[in-house]
């Protein structure tokens, strides 16, 4: 029997075995095939007894590794999991973790790469809107604990008088994301949310929580696919609640402008005016300008109401 390896080699061996996608014993067989292990007998590293052999003991950790991370991802992507069902989500997570194991000190960022990972996968052939649904869910996760900011109030905006109004630069709070999606997934998100009303996801970041294998049996919810049409969304947090809303092209363009270093009110006005003819079908310049002015007032009012505006100094 080989001598026990040193600490680094012991840890790399254990990591390889507990993260092996098909389990500890197949993982050990693969290592033997590749020359990484002399034998599948792991007793040169792990002590076994009459109750549990070395591989079984490692399998306890392997199971906990997978279920903990899967449960975390299902909390971050509940609508993706609901649409494809527990069994497909289980397999998706297995594949995902092989490519994107956690490399952060909390589970907070584990799902960051999932939307892009879904592109081009077999699953996306069956559910082509899935990457966009995942992007929406990730944006909601992302703003949940993003930095706080004191949004401008209606009083603060109206108090800016005279020439100063032209110099005012507006930007967006950190907890705001803009999404340009190929599929209009917002209604689908709402449908699944309504179906799941009353369901409270559980779980903590504790290192001692066991996973829930029963999730594999969760059936896919029955909802129709979304329309394949451009979906422009803003996702934001007000106080401690996360919201998202579909926006029109002119609002999206203004929000983009503000998110890229801030925008003045004349800049926002120009942005809206450029798009007013397209949206309103107006041709006369004075009518277009009046429509744009009304639209700007509506947009600013909604941004103040939603608490997403900050003054950029």
């Amino acid at each position: 029997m080989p001598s026990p390896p040193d600490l680094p080699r012991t840890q790399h061996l254990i990591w390889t075995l507990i993260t092996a996608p098909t389990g500890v014993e197949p993982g050990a067989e693969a290592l033997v095939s590749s020359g990484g292990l002399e034998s599948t007998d792991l007793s040169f590293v792990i002590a076994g007894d009459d109750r549990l052999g070395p591989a079984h003991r490692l399998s306890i950790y392997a199971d906990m590794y997978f279920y903990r991370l899967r449960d975390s991802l299902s909390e971050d992507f509940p609508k993706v999991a609901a649409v494809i069902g527990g069994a497909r989500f289980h397999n998706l997570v297995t594949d995902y973790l092989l490519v994107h194991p956690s490399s952060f000190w909390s589970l907070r960022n584990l799902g960051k790469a999932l939307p892009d990972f879904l592109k081009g996968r077999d699953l996306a052939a069956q559910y082509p809107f899935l990457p966009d649904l995942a992007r929406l869910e990730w944006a909601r996760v992302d703003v949940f604990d993003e930095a706080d900011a004191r949004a401008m109030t209606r009083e603060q905006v109206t108090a800016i008088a005279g020439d100063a109004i032209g110099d005012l630069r507006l930007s967006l709070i950190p907890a705001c994301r803009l999404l340009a999606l190929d599929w209009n997934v917002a209604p689908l998100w709402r449908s699944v949310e309504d179906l799941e009303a009353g369901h409270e996801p559980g779980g903590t970041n504790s290192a001692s929580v066991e996973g829930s294998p029963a999730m594999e049996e969760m059936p896919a919810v029955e909802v129709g696919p979304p329309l394949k049409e451009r979906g422009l969304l803003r996702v934001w947090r007000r106080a401690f609640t996360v919201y998202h809303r579909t926006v029109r092209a002119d609002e999206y363009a203004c929000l983009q402008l503000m998110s890229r270093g801030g925008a003045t009110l004349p800049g926002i006005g120009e942005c809206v005016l450029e798009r007013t003819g397209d949206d309103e079908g107006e041709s006369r310049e004075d009518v277009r300008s009046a429509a744009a002015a009304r639209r700007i007032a509506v947009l600013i009012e909604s941004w103040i109401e939603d608490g997403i505006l900050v003054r950029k100094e």
Partner: protein
Amino acid sequence: MTLQKPLGHGVGLRRDHFERVLSAPTRVDWFEVISENFMVNGGRPLDVLAKVRRDYPIVLHGVSLSIGTADPLDTSYLDGLKALAALVEPAWISDHLCWTGVGGHNAHDLLPLPYTEESLDHVARRVTRVQERLGRRIALENVSSYMSFTASTMTEWDFLREVAEAADCGILLDINNIFVSSVNHRFDPADYVDAIPVDRVWQFHLAGHSDHGAYLLDTHDHPVRDEVWALYRRAVKRFGPVSTLIEWDGNIPDWDRLEAESLTAREAQRIALAA
């Protein structure tokens, strides 16, 4: 070594109980939070923590220090932890005597170490560096384990004691973890408790576990078991009125049930000290 002032009886602060804890006084003395859950930029978790801190002592309890990994120390993690500590002013900071990943990856699990001289030197040196970087001592917790290493040359309790002495750190003695591991590795849990130096123990953990037949699993989803209460009473007799915390992370009960478990610990401590 200076003992930490006892905080009394607390519980782990979990999302399910945020509203209840903020809305009315409770009968617990302090809260422990998972550090990593609050090492974020903003939002509700930090707001809740700041409000709870106004009324209660807080202990920061980490799960990703990975003090035993062969990887280099994660200085960005330590700086984030230090920043959170500056905000919260915790009674102390704790983490686990374990490793959580290697090769830059994190299993988000508490993996046991081989109890060897090599591990001892490695861990003690790293605890010293962590304490220097944080500017304060930390406490290390014994983990529940389901595997042990053929390379080990000492018992877990000897290893824990030696690390604490070499690095001059505190010990968070998890009574449930001792019991779980004693069944899984067939040792007498009393030997463990009796071998830990009295002046190193800052805190106790109590929790429930699950019986899987061939082994016990540290699930934190049950009330504290009778055998663990018995071991707790033994520990109280040896270590005195050490700050005691109930961990309950799965099948989380309503606040009244959780609070009742903490009050049971308080009564168990009182009886043990009076005996």
